[in-house]
Structures are given as structure tokens and as C-alpha cells.
């Protein structure tokens, strides 16, 4: 059933760009026709505002919108669909938590713990909160195998976490990413949350699942976290829509993040009563079409199932790494864990001291799209002592031929600079 070549027929971008070798899904994924059609359906058939109109098309739009909330809720196994808040992306979700929860929770001398592996979106909001409140930001480092230094794996892959030096009773928030966008490391999120809660049961745990939601089945109840965020556009969905999941009791006690329409119950001259969760956090007209179409992305992923998708991506990453090492030997450095089972479909590398921008530019001459730069992880690149790296990332529509093209392209890169 899982045939990447057939899958491509569902992605119109390949029809319009027949030679496209798209290896930048960690930045944003391509979109299947069902998602594009659903966006159009809203605009063509019932493009009314939600939660307001009494007329039929407004009711239809509201229904479709709220159905998305239920489907997202099932997708991550949350207890109730009111725990799903739509934002414009993982970045806004994290800013909402840092701003709203930070205001209510953080005082001078409190601690926030995060890791060096974070995307700037899960780093800078905490750093800013620290500056505003006088809290202390502690950063978990990585080891030589590009995994959290606080994690040790046994031969059989069983992980042990020791955060007794980092997390204390003063630690109010632990914010970590599930899968690294730069190294592809799949982090032991469930285990670190368990350990953190042992030290401080009141700790609030935040999971950045932007690179996990497209590839790994997520179960917020099993992870035991308090908040989890992701973006629609990295998992075949439209841009401009993201998800913030939070435990109901937290969301209820948190102050609103923005004020305006839809988030209020009653406004008088002197005071305002806010709407219930989740609407309290969805001020103004949201990206209705995008949210409605997000459920089609989930349906598409569910059709193939994460097991098949993950197997396929891991196989491709393995094929790519082995092929690149075979071809370039000592001249290439592949980042990320050596164990394939603990990495996603992200393959970042440094080749022959050639600047990643030059690599990406020459690959583009062959219609190969890769990412070059620091991938919004500057603290990590600083630690790794590479100013920039090149990243190829795989998804369900990629195949071994794409990898062959990449390796062929890299051969041309090396040749260009050997002249």
C-alpha cells in the first residue's frame, strides 16, 4: 500500500515541477491535493465567519471548524477537545504559554529549564521571560552522540535520565523539544518529564512537537506533559495554523494572551468577562480555511499510518547517510545520533569545509532543495562550532531516487570546488 511514487500523484507540486527533488520538509512539507481542495471548499462553498452567524453557511463553517478541533484532539489523544487551542503556529503557541503562564507563574529566582537543542521558538521566549522576571534559565547540554547529556542509553536502547543536578524544587517550567530540527535526535521526552515530576511534582512541562507531529504518533496523556505544541504546515497542512494543547485546569487559570472578538463573554465600560476555554485564547477571526483543512492533513497521515511513514523515513535517512559516507568518507561529517532508531528523517551534514550556502546553491542548479544555515538553532551551532550546516529532510513523498540525486549533486559540488 505504501508506495512513495504513487503518493507523489497526490501532491500537485510535482506535476507543476516534474524535476523537483524536495528535501526540506523539516522547514515545511508539501501539501496533498485533499488539503488544497479543502481550503478551496471553504472559500467556494461556505466562506462565512464562525461562531456568529445565524445563517446556514455560517453554521456550516462553525461545524467544520469545531470538527477540526475534535479531530486534532483525537490525533494527540487529549482528554477533551476544549484543550485544543488553534494558533498561527508552534511559535505562537510557545509565545502564548511563555507570556500567559509566565505572567501568572514566574517570579524572581525561579528556574526555567530547557536544552541547547531547541529551535529559537522554544528558547527565546523563555530567555525573554527570564529577563522580564529575574528568573534563571538553565540549559541542558548535548553529548558527543548529539543527544541530551542527561540521558544515558543501555545497549538495548533503554534510557536513563539523571537531571538531579539541573531540576530543583525551584524549577517552575521544563521546556523541551521532542525531535531536533537540526540533528534529527528523537529525545526521551516522556522519561525526562517523569524524572522532572519526581523532583518537583508542580513543575510545568512544555513539549515542542513541531518536528514530531508530522512523523511520530503523539499521546499527550502517555507523555505526561502539561503543554504540547505543533504547526500544521510541517505535517501536510496549510501554513498559518498551529496547535496549542494544554491541560484544561491550566488553560482555565491562565490569563488571555490577546483581547478582542470571540474571546469575550460580556463587555461593559469598566470590565470584561472572558469566554470559556478554548475560545478565551482565540481572539479575532482565526485562519478558518486553514484550520478546517488541517483535518484533511491528519486524515491523509492516518490513511498510511505513522508506522509506515516512520519506517519509510528512517530507511531513507539510513540510505542517505550510508551512501554519503560511502561516497565522501572522511570528508563528510553527519550530525546526529549514530543509532538510526533514535533519529528522525533529518540528515544534517558538513562537507569538505564547503560553505552550506554554496552547497545549497549548486544543488539548486539541479532542482534539489535543501536547507543551508543555522536552522534557527544558533546556540546549538555555536556549541557544535559550525557556523552553518546543510540539512536534507525526508518525508513520505521522498524516495531513494531523491537520495541518489542528492549524492550526485554533492559530487558536482565537490567537483566545482576542486577546479
Amino acid at each position, binding site marked *: 500500500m505504501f508506495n512513495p511514487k504513487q503518493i507523489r500523484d497526490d501532491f500537485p507540486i510535482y506535476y507543476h515541477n516534474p524535476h523537483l527533488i524536495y528535501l526540506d520538509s523539516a522547514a515545511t512539507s508539501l501539501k496533498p491535493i485533499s488539503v488544497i481542495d479543502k481550503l478551496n471548499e471553504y472559500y467556494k462553498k461556505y466562506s462565512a465567519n464562525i461562531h456568529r452567524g445565524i445563517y446556514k453557511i455560517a453554521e456550516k463553517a462553525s461545524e467544520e471548524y469545531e470538527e477540526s478541533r475534535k479531530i486534532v484532539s483525537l490525533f494527540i489523544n487529549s482528554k477533551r477537545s476544549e484543550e485544543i487551542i488553534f494558533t498561527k503556529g508552534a511559535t505562537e503557541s510557545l509565545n502564548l504559554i511563555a507570556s500567559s503562564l509566565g505572567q501568572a507563574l514566574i517570579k524572581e529566582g525561579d528556574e526555567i529549564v530547557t536544552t541547547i537543542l531547541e529551535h529559537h521558538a522554544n528558547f527565546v521566549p523563555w530567555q525573554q521571560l527570564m529577563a522580564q522576571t529575574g528568573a534563571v534559565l538553565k540549559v541542558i547540554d548535548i553529548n558527543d552522540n548529539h543527544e541530551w547529556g542527561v540521558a544515558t542509553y543501555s545497549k538495548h536502547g533503554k534510557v536513563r535520565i539523571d537531571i538531579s543536578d539541573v531540576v530543583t524544587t525551584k524549577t517552575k517550567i521544563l521546556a523541551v523539544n521532542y525531535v531536533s530540527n537540526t540533528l534529527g535526535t528523537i529525545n526521551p521526552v516522556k522519561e525526562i518529564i517523569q524524572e522532572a515530576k519526581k523532583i518537583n511534582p508542580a513543575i510545568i512541562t512544555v513539549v515542542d512537537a513541531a518536528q514530531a507531529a508530522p512523523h511520530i504518533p503523539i499521546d499527550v496523556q502517555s507523555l505526561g506533559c502539561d503543554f504540547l505544541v505543533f504547526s500544521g504546515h510541517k505535517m501536510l497542512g496549510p501554513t498559518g495554523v498551529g496547535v496549542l494543547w494544554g491541560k484544561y485546569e491550566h488553560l482555565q487559570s491562565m490569563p488571555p494572551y490577546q483581547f478582542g472578538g470571540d474571546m469575550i463573554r460580556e463587555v461593559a465600560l469598566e470590565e470584561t468577562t472572558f469566554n470559556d476555554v478554548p475560545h478565551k485564547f482565540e481572539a479575532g477571526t482565526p485562519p478558518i480555511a486553514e484550520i478546517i483543512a488541517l483535518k484533511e492533513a491528519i486524515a491523509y497521515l492516518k490513511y498510511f499510518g505513522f508506522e509506515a511513514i516512520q519506517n519509510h523515513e528512517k530507511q531513507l535517512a539510513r540510505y542517505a547517510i550510508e551512501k554519503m559516507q560511502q561516497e565522501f568518507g572522511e570528508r563528510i561529517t553527519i550530525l546526529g545520533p549514530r543509532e538510526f532508531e533514535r533519529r528522525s528523517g533529518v540528515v544534517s551534514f558538513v562537507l569538505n569545509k564547503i*560553505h552550506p*550556502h*554554496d552547497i545549497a546553491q*549548486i544543488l539548486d542548479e539541479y532542482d534539489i532543495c535543501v536547507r543551508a*544555515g*543555522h536552522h534557527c538553532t544558533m546556540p546549538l551551532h555555536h556549541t557544535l562550532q559550525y*557556523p552553518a550546516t546543510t540539512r536534507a529532510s525526508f518525508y513520505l513523498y521522498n524516495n531513494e531516487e531523491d537520495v541518489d540525486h542528492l549524492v550526485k549533486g554533492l559530487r558536482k559540488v565537490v567537483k566545482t570546488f576542486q*577546479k
Partner: protein
Amino acid sequence: MSIYADIILDHYQNPRNNKKLDTPSRTVDVNNPLCGDKLHMELTEKNGSVEDIGFTGEGCAISIASASLLTQYAKGKDLQKLSSLEADDVVGLLGIELTPNRMKCALLSWEGLLKLVNK
């Protein structure tokens, strides 16, 4: 057409004026944090002109080749005249067509040169 023309590769692999000066009268550091490109540039002057000029640093082929070509161009030129050098002139020196994203790489040394001559 590839932007990695012979002239670019030549100046990237054998950059001219890729040196530190003994007694520079003006120095400047410029960087492009998005790419990780960093240049240190310095010059000595004589009668209002560039007597010698050098640069060190790291960057992509375009930024290094551009620093090489630009310092070569600047040597011996009047400081005042150099301060009116425009981005288009630098692109002209490179002789290639650049996308907006790569323009930043090509113009880093120009940014440095302008800071040097306006000091």
C-alpha cells in the same frame, strides 16, 4: 548559468589581499549572522587614498570572492570616491547574476568597505 563562474572560484580559492596589515589605520568587523559569514577588514591610507587593504575571515564562495575583488578594486583609490560606491558597482565587479538571498553574501565586504572609508 552557474554563479560559480571561473572568476568567482579563482578569487574564492586564491583570495587577493587575504592578509593582516602591520599597522592598519582603520579596521572594521562585519558579519552576516544568518549565514555565519564574518569578515575583518583593514586598510592603510596615504594622501587620502587607500595605500593597502586586507581582509581575513570566513564565508561562502560568494562573500570571499567579493571581498577579494572589492579590495583589489579599492587599492589605490581615493577614500572619498570609494564612499560613494554603490551595491550595483560591486555586483558589476563580480560579473554574475545574484538572487536576493545571495546578494547579502556578495555585499558583506562592501558594507565593511563603506564603514572603513567613512570612519
